[in-house]
């Protein structure tokens, strides 16, 4: 039983929870009360932010302990986690994804590219930042942002 021994010796790897972020909760998040289902949309990112989002949900950062969970369908989701500059091909799918979510819903732009197109500003295939396509409720700056920051943003949404 190698796995059993591994579990015993590893123990808990989740880091102690940092204090709850000071910043206030976005308005729409008030009704969620500690439960947030997250749908990720890659609108044209270089995948750097995706790696960090994945890291935010790993055992070390464990975003799930604050009530956030990744889901497979936007119908189940409250939050769209959008990364990357919005490319022309992804603008419409992004709008549709957010339209598929039921109220209350929030859009969180993750990474510099999602906020102001970053490196890709002015590129021929870039439609614009996420805010140009959809109203953004929360932004997480960084290229890529640290998992800590992503977790902190999610905590502002869940309120835990």
């Amino acid at each position, binding site marked *: 039983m190698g796995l059993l021994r591994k579990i015993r010796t590893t123990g808990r790897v989740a880091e102690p929870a940092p204090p709850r972020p000071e910043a206030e909760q976005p308005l729409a998040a008030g009704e969620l009360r500690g439960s947030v289902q997250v749908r990720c*949309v890659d609108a044209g990112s270089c995948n750097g932010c995706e790696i960090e989002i994945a890291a935010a949900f790993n055992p070390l950062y464990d975003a799930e302990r604050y009530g956030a969970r990744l889901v497979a*369908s*936007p*119908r189940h989701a409250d939050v769209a986690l959008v990364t990357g500059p919005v490319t022309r091909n*992804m603008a*419409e*799918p*992004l709008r*549709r*994804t957010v*339209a*598929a979510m*039921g*109220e209350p819903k929030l859009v969180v732009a993750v990474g510099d590219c999602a906020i102001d197109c970053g490196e890709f500003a002015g590129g021929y295939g870039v439609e614009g930042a996420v805010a140009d396509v959809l109203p953004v409720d929360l932004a997480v700056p960084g290229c890529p942002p640290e998992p800590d920051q992503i977790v902190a943003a999610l905590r502002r949404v869940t309120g835990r």
Partner: protein
Amino acid sequence: MSVIPAALAAAAVLAGAGALAGIVLPYRLRIPAVGVLTAGVGVGGGTAGVAALGGSGWAGTFPGVLPLAGAAAAVDALAGLFIAVAGAVVAAVAVYGIGYAAGHGPHGLGSRTAQAVLPPFALTLVLVPVAASVSTFLALWELMALGSLLLVLAEHRERASVRQAGVWYAVMTHLGLVLLLAGLALFAAGAGGETFTALRAGAHTVPPAVRGLVFVLVALAFTSKAGALPLHAWLPRAHPEAPSPVSALMSAAMVNLGIYGLVRTGLDLLGGGPAWWWLGLIAVGGTSAVYGILQAAMASDLKRLLAYSTSENMGLVLIGVGASGLFAAYGDRPLAALALCAALLHVVNHSAFKALLFCAAGSVLRSTGLRDLDRLGGLRSRMPVTAAFFAVAALGAVALPPGNGFISEWLLLQSLIHGLAVPGVAVAVVLPLSVALIALSAGIAAAAFVKALGVGFFARPRSDRAASAEEAPILMLAGMGLLGAACAALALVPGLLGGSLDRAVGATGLPGGGAVSGGGLEVRLTGISAALSPVWVVAALTVALMAAVGLPRLYGRRRRRVNARLWDCGGGAPTPRMAYTATSFAEPLQRVFDDVLAPEQDLDVTPVRESAYLVERVRFQRRVSDRIEHRLYEPVLRALNTAGQSARRLAGGSVHRYLGYGFAGLVFLLLALAVGW
């Protein structure tokens, strides 16, 4: 004059009038007149049947009707059950048929021949159980087969497949007749009389080997009529190709008569038999059930699916009959009565839901011209009533509460589970296997009917014809309404049938004492501590459903329900081509049962001319053919073909030679007679 002969006589007169009306009247008047008269036949039969179930009996002889022996008729409760079922189905389907044939034009079912044959066919369905002598039975049986054959062929101008199905049906039904004739003649010779009374009295004088042979011959014929393996091949061809009301009559009334014949000869006339008869019957039933429903789950032709499901349900009934005989052979008569009761109840239930299913499939076919599930879809918004009726009947067919099929399967399972008290290795081995087979067939039936309902009626239309479907006319809906009401009544208050079932079981000589009782609302088995109250289940489900809908509303903030596009992964809107079809739905099951079904598949990749690596076209074809038919029938057909080829040499074309054959034959026969004497 008692009710039974009067009602039967009325049915016969109405049938005669109907046949006449079918021939004489012009197209416009023909269909309503024949429909009403056929419905009258059904009502007459139903009245007689109900009267017989109520406990009255009747017997009579008609010396002049048939040559030599004359015709004998008798009605007891067992016959009454089948008469009543046939009558009810005929009445409802006749009403439906008026609407069905009216829109069809003077071809097909509306044609002079078909309309003239329909009432007599309906009459034979009612009259076969009335027969009380071998010759009467065979005559009526053959008339029924001929009537159904003509009706199956009604649309022969429209599709070549109808003609092919007709040939199959004609050959197989006559093969059945030959077997039946041989078996019953042997029996009559051994028992020293051809009336059923004489057979019953003389059965014990027949040597065991002959009895066994009689049973095997008769059982082959009757199981073939019931659509059970191995002589089932006509059923999945003839039932889909017949006009839908005829399919309904065949699937819901005619196949039952196979069961009737089996119960009548096996349990009543032969008076039961050794265990191997019944083990064989259970084996036939079990394989038919699983194989039939497996083919149904694979079928993408809606009516073929329903036809194979008939095979399945008759298989279940055969398991019940077989178990009954087995228990009786080991001396546990109350349990035998219970198993038979379950089988008969399943016959009734199956008739109700299968007639409704075929009628609903018929209105889909009439409105869209399609039977192919892969091209149907979205009918629930275009044909809401038909879809609702199909759903009600499908609930019965999947054997889940609160459907009517559940009650009889529950009863059947109870009789098998409690059969362990019966000693004997065979029982101990066979019972668990039958339970497993029943369970497997029930599980696959659920998949098959989810497919039929979900793919055929739900989602979005997959073709223009399905998109432009229209609801069926009022008479068709009325016919379906009658059947739907029957399904609901059987599902909710099966106990009402309790007394009748007991009397029907009692007619075979088994103690039918109160296997099902409980004041009409409950099924309570005496001797076995098990009870089922369908009304209670429905009430509890309703209360729970209301709670499940209501409680969240109390808590939730009343947001308005909004409409949204289907989630398309952000791409373009999903087209009907992306939806799962019946074929794709069945694919996992088909892969699981690969070894049983042996599908043939065929992949054909055509590269473009310039390069072998660029593909221009890929053609993929997969067919699940009836493997048993393949393996069993083809060698026989091939052998027949070869024999036919070699026989051609005898036929040189000279008329004198043919006459010579006849003459030689006659002389030979006379010589043989002379020497033999």
